[in-house]
């Protein structure tokens, strides 16, 4: 049984970090390669801590991101809801995958999200994304272990300081 004492500080801090990383200015060439931080953090909390498991939470988070980044209202919300659903659906399996395989699954989730986003972009009639845009899931995969380790360490520390 997981202890009821949560880790609200780490959760809040990770959310703030996601906002900062999402809004952070990047040089022109790599803007479209920005990894999908929100998805990475959402996947982590769902898999490892059993937090943010509600689709509604993913939806709300996506809406906030949409407003902040000037995206079509609901576009990222849709993406995050689908990611949240898939993670929840295969949660028990993904949790016990070896790390490499887990990173692969994360990449597949992010790639699937790119396809959802592309669908919206196509419907709206926006410009087709450049090739850099497709490298974001790969970057996400490479970042996953580090996000995982960092958040895990923070969470352990907070829990230890509580008991």
């Amino acid at each position, binding site marked *: 049984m997981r202890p009821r004492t949560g880790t609200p500080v780490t959760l809040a801090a990770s959310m703030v970090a996601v906002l900062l990383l999402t809004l952070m200015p990047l040089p022109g060439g790599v803007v479209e390669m920005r990894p999908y931080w929100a998805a990475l953090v959402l996947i982590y909390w769902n898999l490892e801590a059993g*937090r943010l498991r509600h*689709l509604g939470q993913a939806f709300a988070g996506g809406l906030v991101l949409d407003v902040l980044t000037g995206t079509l*209202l*609901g576009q990222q919300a849709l993406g995050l809801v689908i990611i949240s659903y898939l993670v929840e659906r295969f949660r028990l399996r993904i949790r016990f995958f070896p790390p490499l395989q887990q990173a692969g699954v994360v990449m597949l989730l992010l790639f699937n999200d790119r396809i959802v986003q592309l669908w919206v972009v196509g419907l709206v009639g926006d410009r087709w994304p450049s090739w850099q845009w497709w490298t974001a899931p790969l970057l996400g995969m490479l970042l996953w272990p580090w996000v995982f380790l960092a958040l895990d360490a923070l969470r352990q520390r907070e829990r230890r300081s509580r008991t």
Partner: protein
Amino acid sequence: MTSESGYRAAPADSDAGARVVRLAFYGLLAIVLMTLDYRGHHAQKMRTAAWRAAEPLFLVVELPFDLGRRLGEQLRSHHGLMQQIRALESERIASQARLALLAELQDDNHELRTLLGAAQRISLTFRTAELMNLGLNPWSHRVLVNRGRSDGVRTGQPVMDARGVMGQVDETGFNTAQVILISDPDHALPVRVQRTGLRTVAYGTGHIDRLQLNDLPMNVDLEPGDRLLTSGLDDVFPAGLPVAEVQSLERPTGEAFARAELRPLARLDRARHVLIVEVPEQPQPLSREDDSGAAGPEKSADDSADGGSEDLEGET
């Protein structure tokens, strides 16, 4: 606390059927929202409110990067600065000479217009603003500037850089404003060809370095290199601001209209300092125009481009 209840309620979620229903519900909700946002501008009010609430966050994220830039400027060498000052000084003298000539032309123009009894050209004032560093979604064709309602910036004000029109203010926060660029696929701008006086509408394409003319007559007199100015038909942009240069003209066989590709004169992707144009109150403000200007740039531009052309024949 939501996270706590989230944990306790989680086991109920494992019911696969309920999850699918919920997925369908949120998916539909997202699609409805997107449609509302895209089609009707219904979500505009909500977006404005949310954006204003989020403004402090923008400022906080901006802060470290702004500091970094300032630090970089501090560290720049004395020699480099002196060189830059010299270059700017010579540029200033050249522009001043040109301005002196312009002043005389303006007087001439003023007198001629009085003789003709034509409407006077309004003189423009500018407010300078700086672009913020924040990276919005690469598709949004919006930029943030560091002036807001506290500086008197209003929705719908034209924004330009030193070379030409960049866009118009779309949302205003207290200290920041969001500018929609002319390259946004939703943006339409009534323009006039400088050489021939032909009036048409320039549409954004979604590419930062390209605009389009879609509804030119097949026998149109247009050449690559022609400059386009705002025509002033939308009551948003004053007439005569430089917009773009024609790059290529295409007359596809079997279609009703010729098409032209334009290159915006403003450096939409690189400008750092911009000018927000103060448009003086029009003598005959139409409330309908004001409303549509606030609702969305595309609508206002289209409305007046369709309906306003007869009025203007008399004025100029």
